[in-house]
């Protein structure tokens, strides 16, 4: 008995983690998947109902708006984070004075919650006392900046706050990537007469492919899961103009008590994330095994 225990101790120590994740991650996802095929309202029902909830979901105007918003947000969020992140990383890489301080400033938003930063942005962007008033007081009397309360434009305020929060992170990834390149390569290129611009554009950035890939995966992942920022900044409003899938899911589940429908929306999110993550994990593992 004791020998057996000793021999299997490592597996016994692993068991709680594997059991917890098996139950709370895999079991729960399967439960949600099952419920998405039932006609559950407030309480879950277990008779199968086919794809009805998915049909309902894709016929819902609110869900379609959510998906639209997610696509707009993801595209802009990706572009701005990556462009700003790369510019900052390259500029910081030029033996800048006070680099540590600047880096700290670029990255501190990542330490704050979206609720905290959303609260701040909401105050800054509010038309009565925020930026709009500041510019008007400075003499630009016709200056208007009321995106926060404009149905068409409110989604872009979420982009502004989201980029502000995450661009520094992309900067950190690229800076680490640039620093890992051998100095020799850069020196050799310079001796050959390449300008600094050419060195980055033709040599270093193409070498950063894995970093681009990682940033892409992480940023898309963040954007699909966006929830807190929207709650803090617009609560999906004005109207439903800034709803996104994560918000749709919780509202449908906990305010409207449409459990089956919300499970279907959760599974759509799950599949979207899986479509990005599985190739990523696959390539990461291959890289690790190649080493």
């Amino acid at each position, binding site marked *: 008995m004791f020998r057996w225990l000793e021999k299997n101790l*490592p597996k016994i120590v*692993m068991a709680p983690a594997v059991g917890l994740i*098996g139950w709370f*991650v895999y*079991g729960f996802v399967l439960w949600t998947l099952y419920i998405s095929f039932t006609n559950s309202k407030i309480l879950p029902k277990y008779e199968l109902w086919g794809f009805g909830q998915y049909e309902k979901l894709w016929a819902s105007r609110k869900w379609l708006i959510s998906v639209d918003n997610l696509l707009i947000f993801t595209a802009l969020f990706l572009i701005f984070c990556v462009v700003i992140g790369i510019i900052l990383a390259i500029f910081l890489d030029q033996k800048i004075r006070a680099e540590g301080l600047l880096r700290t400033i670029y*990255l501190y938003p990542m330490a704050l919650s979206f609720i905290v930063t959303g*609260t701040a942005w909401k105050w800054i962007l509010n038309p009565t*006392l925020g930026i709009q008033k500041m510019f008007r007081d400075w003499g630009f009397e016709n200056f208007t900046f009321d995106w926060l309360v404009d149905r068409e434009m409110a989604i872009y305020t979420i982009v502004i706050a989201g980029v502000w929060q995450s661009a520094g992170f992309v900067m950190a990834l690229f800076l680490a990537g640039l620093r890992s390149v051998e100095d020799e390569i850069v020196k050799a290129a310079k001796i050959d007469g390449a300008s600094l611009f050419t060195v980055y554009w033709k040599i270093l950035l193409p070498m950063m492919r894995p970093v681009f890939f990682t940033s892409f*995966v992480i940023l898309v992942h963040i954007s699909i899961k966006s929830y807190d920022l929207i709650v803090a900044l617009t609560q999906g409003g004005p109207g439903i103009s800034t709803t996104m899938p994560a918000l749709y899911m919780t509202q449908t589940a906990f305010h409207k008590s449409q459990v089956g429908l919300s499970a279907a929306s959760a599974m759509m999110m799950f599949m979207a994330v899986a479509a990005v993550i599985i190739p990523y994990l696959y390539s990461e593992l291959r890289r690790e095994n190649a080493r």
Partner: protein
Amino acid sequence: MFLRWFLYFILILFASYFIFPLYVMVVTSLKTMEEIRQGTLLSWPSGLNLESWAVAWGGRGYGAGDTFLRPYFWNSIKMVVPAVFFSTFIGAMTGYVLTKWRFKGDQWVFLFLLFGCFIPFQAILLPMARTLGVLGISNSVIGLVLVHTVYGIPFTTLFFRNYYISVPTELVKAARIDGAGFFKIFFKILLPISAPIIVVTVIWQFTQIWNDFLFGSTFSFGEAAPIQVALNNMVLSSTSVKEYNVDMASAIIAGIPTLIVYVLAGKYFIRGLTSGAVKG
């Protein structure tokens, strides 16, 4: 030379964009409402007026509708400390087994755990809410400790596994020949060299759990709510006139613990971020 100036100009321009909201938060929290209406976002406060901080933290002292952050701040502490401890401990153990007591199929077990880093939590919210109800710990700090411990395990395992994999296995083998057991090897050989990864993991978990809103707002309300939920409720409550100075003081109070950790241990924070920032 011109290029250098241009470089610094752009870098400082972006630095001001990043610092701007924090600056606005701090100065706004120090103004009176009168000053806020008259000045602009950037204008300097007339003095060190800490009243809105006092109101944000401890309320105004009259009964109904007087929400303030102090009790929720303690809720968050009571939630974060055990959740960080348990998830870090479990992660250290699984990371240890996965690298130093390898068994057949351990790579699959790792992948099995790792996938938990990526799932959108919406896919587990409904069954989790029911489970907490069945266990009788919905709307309680204990329930949130359970939730954060469980969903932290994939990350803590990832951190420890990637750290321990670079520790030479020969050390462990030699100790085993000398008759040291499973726990002795962990406590005598691995734990003493684990300080950096423990710091990374604790900071990562602390920041994630402190800043969480989705779980907090779904599984708790009223008195058991953590601070982010309370902050959001405070800011959204439309019962009285908007007091932006109190809102900003509240936001700073809710953000200051993680900000302090970031400033003191930024290096470790970034290490965690670059190896585990798959979580939104």
